[in-house]
C-alpha cells in the first residue's frame, strides 16, 4: 500500500540554549506584561486563599473583625464532624459517578456521530445544547419535572410503568441519583464535544487499516479509538473531578442538601456554615480542605498534561 504523505506538524521549538548567548536578560518591562494577570490571580485568588487560612484560625461569625484565635481547633473539629464526612463522601461519589457516566456516554455519542452520517448535525446540537443552559434553569426545570405529579412520573405512567413513580428528589433513596442524572444530562455534551474533536484528529489511515484488518466498530472503538484518546480521557477526568468539587448550584436548588443531609456536598456545607450558622471561621477551614483537594487535582492535571506532551 502506497503511503500518502502527511502534512508535517509544525511545532515551534526554542533555539538551543547556549550560556551567555541568544537570550537577553529579562527586563522590568517583561515582568510588567504579566502584571494585570498577576494582580487578578494573586490579588483575588491567592490573597483570598491566604485570607481563608487566616480566618480558619479563628472562631469567627463573619461579622466584624475576627478576635477569638483558636489555632487549629477548626481543623480538628471537622475531623469529628459527621456532616463534613458525609458531604465529602457525597462529593467523591458525585465525582466518580458523573465522570464515569459522562465519559462513557460522551465517547459513545462521539463515535456514533462519526460513524452515522444521517442527522449528525442535529444530534451534535441536541447533545450540546444542555451544556450552554444556566444551571439555575436546569435545576428549576428538573425540580418541577421530578415532583410526584411532575412530567417524569406522568411519562412513566404513560408508558405503563406506574409502579416506578417516585418523589424523585424528596426520597433519600433516589434524590442523590436524580441529581447525578441531571448533571449527566447537562454535561455529557461537554465530554461529547471534546471526544468528537479528538476523534476528528485521528489519522484516518489508522482507522482504515483497522477496518481492512477486519475490525468491527466495537473492536475499532475499544482497541483503536479509545486508546488514542488518552489525552482527552485524562483532561475530562481531571476537569470532571475539579468541577465536581465545585458543585453547588444544582444541589442547592434541587434538594438544598436534603432530605436531612443525604445529598449535602462540601460547597453546600461550607455555604450553610458561613451564611446560615454564622461560622465563618469553621467555613474557612472547610474551604481550605476543598482547596487542598482541588490542588491535588491541579497538580495531577499539570503532571499528566506534561507527560502527555513529552
Amino acid at each position: 500500500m502506497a503511503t500518502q504523505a502527511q502534512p508535517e506538524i509544525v511545532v515551534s521549538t526554542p533555539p538551543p540554549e547556549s550560556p551567555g548567548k541568544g537570550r537577553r536578560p529579562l527586563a522590568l518591562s517583561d515582568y510588567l506584561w504579566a502584571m494585570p494577570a498577576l494582580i487578578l490571580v494573586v490579588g483575588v485568588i491567592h490573597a483570598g486563599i491566604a485570607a481563608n487560612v487566616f480566618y480558619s484560625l479563628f472562631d469567627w461569625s463573619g461579622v466584624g473583625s475576627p478576635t477569638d484565635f483558636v489555632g487549629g481547633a477548626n481543623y480538628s473539629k471537622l475531623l469529628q464532624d459527621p456532616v463534613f464526612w458525609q458531604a465529602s463522601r457525597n462529593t467523591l461519589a458525585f465525582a466518580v459517578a458523573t465522570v464515569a457516566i459522562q465519559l462513557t456516554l460522551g465517547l459513545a455519542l462521539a463515535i456514533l456521530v462519526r460513524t452515522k452520517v444521517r442527522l449528525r448535525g442535529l444530534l451534535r446540537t441536541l447533545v450540546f445544547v444542555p451544556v450552554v443552559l444556566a444551571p439555575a434553569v436546569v435545576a428549576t426545570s428538573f425540580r418541577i419535572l421530578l415532583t410526584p405529579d411532575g412530567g417524569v412520573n406522568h411519562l412513566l405512567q404513560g408508558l405503563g410503568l406506574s409502579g416506578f413513580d417516585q418523589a424523585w428528589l424528596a426520597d433519600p433513596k433516589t434524590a442523590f441519583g436524580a441529581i447525578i442524572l441531571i448533571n449527566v444530562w447537562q454535561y455529557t455534551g461537554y465530554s461529547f464535544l471534546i471526544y468528537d474533536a479528538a476523534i476528528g484528529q485521528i489519522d484516518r489511515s489508522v482507522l482504515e487499516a483497522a477496518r481492512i484488518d477486519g475490525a468491527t466498530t466495537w473492536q475499532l472503538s475499544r482497541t483503536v479509538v479509545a486508546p488514542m484518546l488518552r489525552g482527552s480521557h485524562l483532561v475530562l477526568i481531571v476537569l470532571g473531578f475539579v468541577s465536581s468539587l465545585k458543585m453547588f448550584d444544582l444541589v442547592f436548588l434541587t434538594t438544598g442538601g436534603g432530605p436531612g443531609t443525604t445529598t449535602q456536598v462540601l460547597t453546600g456545607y461550607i455555604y450553610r456554615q458561613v451564611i446560615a450558622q454564622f461560622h465563618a471561621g469553621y467555613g474557612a477551614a472547610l474551604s481550605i480542605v476543598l482547596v487542598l483537594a482541588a490542588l491535588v487535582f491541579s497538580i495531577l492535571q499539570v503532571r499528566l498534561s506534561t507527560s502527555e506532551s513529552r
Partner: protein
Amino acid sequence: MYRSAMRRAAVLTAIALAAAGLAGCGSGSKGQAQSGPVALTWWGWNAFDNVQAIKEFEAANPQIKVTYKQYAYNDYVTALRPGLSSDKGPDVFQVQPGDLTTNFGPLAVPVEDHAAKDLGKDWASSFNPDGLSQLQLDQKQVALPAYMSAAGLVYYNKKILDQYGLGVPADFDQWKKVCATLKARNVKCLAHGAKDAWVNTDVYLSLINSIAPGKVYDAIAGKASWTDPEFVTAMSAWSELFTSGIIPAGATAATEYPDAQTTFLEDKAAFIALGTWNTPATMTKTGQVDAQKTVTKKIDGLFLSAPFPAPVTGDQPTRLFGGPDNGYAVSAKSSKQDAAFKFLEFLTAGDGQKIQAAGGNIPAITSVKVATTDVIDPSQVADIERQQQSLTSLIGPRQIPYSDLSTALGDALSAVAAGTSSPEDALKKVESASKSVSR
C-alpha cells in the same frame, strides 16, 4: 527603536491596567460635605410596602431622601456583613429576632437614648413587650419591631372544605379523616415545603407546644433535655404528618415559598401551616393582588385560619408563638444617625405602623389596630381580630437564638420526615447540639 517603543507600551499598558484594577478596589471619594437633602440608604429583604413608607416619610421630612435596597434573604445576610463594617453600608437595616439580632445587633446603635429623646421617656410602653424583648441584645434595644407575627396556625381554604362537607379539624384524628376524603377527591391536604427548615421548625413548635406547653423554651435554654418523652411524642407526631398522608409525598423537596404557597392559593391543597404574616396575602384585597402575581390560576378560595390541630386527641392546640416578624436598626457606621433614627421611628412608632395595619399586618404599637376594612370576605374580620388579640398572649418566640441548635433541629426534622432517622435518634443529635451551645 521598535524594541524601545514596545517596552514603553508594555510599561504604560501595565501601569494603566494596574491602575484600573486598583481603582476598582479603591474606596472612591469619601467624606464629601453634605449639601442639600440628607440621603439615607435602607437595606432589607422584605420591608413591607417600602414604596409607600418612603413616600409618606419623605413628604413629612422633605430634607431627607431614602433609597431602599432589596436583597434576596441569603444575599442580604452576605451583603450585610461587609456592609455594616464599612461606611458604604446601610444607614437603616432590617433584622429578625434570633441569629440576625445576635450577630448584627452589636453593629447597631442602641435605640434607648434616641427613643427617649424623640418619643418620650415612656416610649417602650406603647410597644408590644414581646416585640421589644426579642430585639434586645445584652439588655440593649438594638432594633425596633416593624410588625408582629406569630405561628401555630393552619390557614385553610373554606371553599374546598365546604365543597366536600368537611369541617376544620381540631386534632390529628379528625385531620386524618379530612385528609382521606380530600385525597379521594384528588385534593392535597396540608401543603408543606419541608425543604425549608424554618417551616418545619414552626410545625414542630406547634406540636410540642400543644403536647407540653412552653417546655420547648426550657430545652432551648438548656434547662430540659430534647430526649424527654414529650419531645419524642412531638417528633413522632411530626413523622405521622408524613406517613399518614396529611402532608403529601414529595414535600421534602418542596419549598414553602413558592411551592407550597402556590399549591394552596391555587386550590390544590386545603391547608397550609403558616403564621399571621400570611393574612395579607389570603384575607385582604390589596395583599391578594400581590399574591395573584405569583400564581397563574385566579385566586378564588375563601381563606381563614385556625389553631394548628392538636397531635393528641383531647389536648388543647398550641397557643400562638412569635414576636416581632422583623425589625429595623440603625448602623453604628452611619454618619447620618439623627436622620436614620427619624426614619426608624417613623417605621416602627409613627405612621409606618399605620401602613402595616392598613396592609393587614399586626402593628407592634398596641394602640394601632390592624385594618379590617380591606378584607375579601366579612367572615375574615373576626379571624384577623382574633389573631391580633392572640399576639398579646404568646407562649414564646418562633426563633431559636442559637444557630447550631436551630440547624440541628432542622436537620433532625428533615431526616425524620424523609424516614432516614427515628424520632429518638434524631432528638439525640439535637440534644448533643444543644449541649455544645454556649449560652
